């Protein structure tokens, strides 16, 4: 089996698609890594749903201000031009279609654009946070994820099996093996690892991968 990209490499690849001037919300955890790999010369304004636009990197240890945190409750700093606002305004930015991109992790993504990323089913304390809001409203919804589960089962499915976060909302999936756009209820393959054949990739993907024209090589640096 082909070794896929690390999380850092997936984040790097997603970061290359951030356009200059975009307003972007990076989900808690893995998606937060994307900020680190933003190409130089592009200005991206980061939104966090707890009420900041234009936050920057983490402060040095010991210099944290715990009233200045992101949605993951990690300490952040402010970039020049930052602003504070209350929660209703923050989610107006989300649902009102003002954000350009929201990036999330996922347990499962379906070819219909459905996403499951908040619950692994009964037996634990349910917690949804802002995920169900974030999947609606941003102009593009990106998912960063391993292509398969830890046990090797496909995460890109015909239909999600876990409880849904949202219906028909994902636009692009950056995985450890490929970059896939969701168009017209189909997975359209944009890039794949050059050492992997389409047949091998399809075997690790439950729903059909559609090829429209060229499939580019997915090439990322060692990180």
């Amino acid at each position, binding site marked *: 089996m082909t070794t896929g990209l690390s999380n850092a490499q997936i984040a790097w690849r997603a970061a290359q698609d951030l356009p200059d001037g975009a307003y972007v919300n990076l989900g808690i955890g893995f998606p937060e890594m994307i900020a680190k790999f933003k190409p130089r010369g592009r200005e991206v304004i980061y939104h*966090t*749903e*707890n*009420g*900041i636009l234009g936050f920057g990197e983490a402060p040095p240890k010991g210099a944290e*201000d*715990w*009233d*200045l*945190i992101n949605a993951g*409750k990690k300490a952040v700093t402010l970039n020049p031009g930052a602003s*504070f*606002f*209350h*929660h*209703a305004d*923050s*989610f107006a930015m*989300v*649902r009102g279609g003002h954000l350009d991109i929201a990036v999330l992790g996922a347990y499962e993504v379906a070819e219909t654009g*459905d996403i499951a990323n908040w619950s692994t089913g009964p037996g634990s*304390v*349910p*917690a*949804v*946070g*802002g*995920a*169900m*809001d974030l999947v*609606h*409203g941003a102009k593009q919804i990106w998912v960063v994820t391993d292509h398969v589960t830890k046990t090797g089962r496909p995460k890109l499915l015909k239909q999600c099996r876990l*409880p*849904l*976060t*949202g*219906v028909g909302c994902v636009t692009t999936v950056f995985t450890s093996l490929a970059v896939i756009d969701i168009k017209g209820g189909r997975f359209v393959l944009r890039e794949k690892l050059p050492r992997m054949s389409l047949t091998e990739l399809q075997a690790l993907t439950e729903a059909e991968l559609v090829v429209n024209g060229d499939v580019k090589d997915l090439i990322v640096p060692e990180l």
Partner: protein
Amino acid sequence: MNKIVKSLEEAVSVVGDGMAVMIGGFGGAGAPIELIHALVDRYRKTGSPGNLTVINNNAGNGDVGIAAMINAGMVTKMVCSFPRSSDPKAFTDKYLAGEIALELVPQGTLAERIRAGGAGIPAFYTPTSYGTVVADGKPVEEFEGRHYVRERWLKADVALIKAELADRMGNLTYRKAARNFSPLMAMAAQTTVVQASRVVEPGGIDPEHVATPGIFVNAIVEVADPKQEEALLRERAVQ
């Protein structure tokens, strides 16, 4: 007009048994720790106020703030979006034992329900949660080709919030991302009780900078150098 009260005890005296209480804060930022602990202290002494419904984004962290209320046994229901934290033991134990109820609300829907409660809007439609279990049983309608779920306003008997500056008329500013839900909760509660780090004379807050106008505020107690929940938990972890 003077909304300033002398003590924390007096400030929280409005909270009674069985009430719905909105508490400001997102994680530790904006949590009104001194107001909360004045309530916990009263409950430990008198057994009241109990049977509370608490509305907050989270459900407590460690053993201070809302977690202390839960540990004391004052809370029978939480309304929140994310009842997990770095140390969610207080809520998790009671929830798994069936001793506390949970109404899970997506974060933006929670904010908008509170805003609607304060704005006199009994219901509204949102795309959030359409097609998910969270929308089960709720009316759905189509607008311009998309589906939306009907959600109801959320109001409370009392809101407890933390501000940076206040004047005796109730005008407030907040500190950085400690603002979060507090301006909305101040609107949605019958009685809004504020702890402010500093009380200034009317005019001491530039009207351009007022984040919550005084009409939404009923009582203010000055708490200089307030505890910050996250900082408090981290200090304790080191000790």
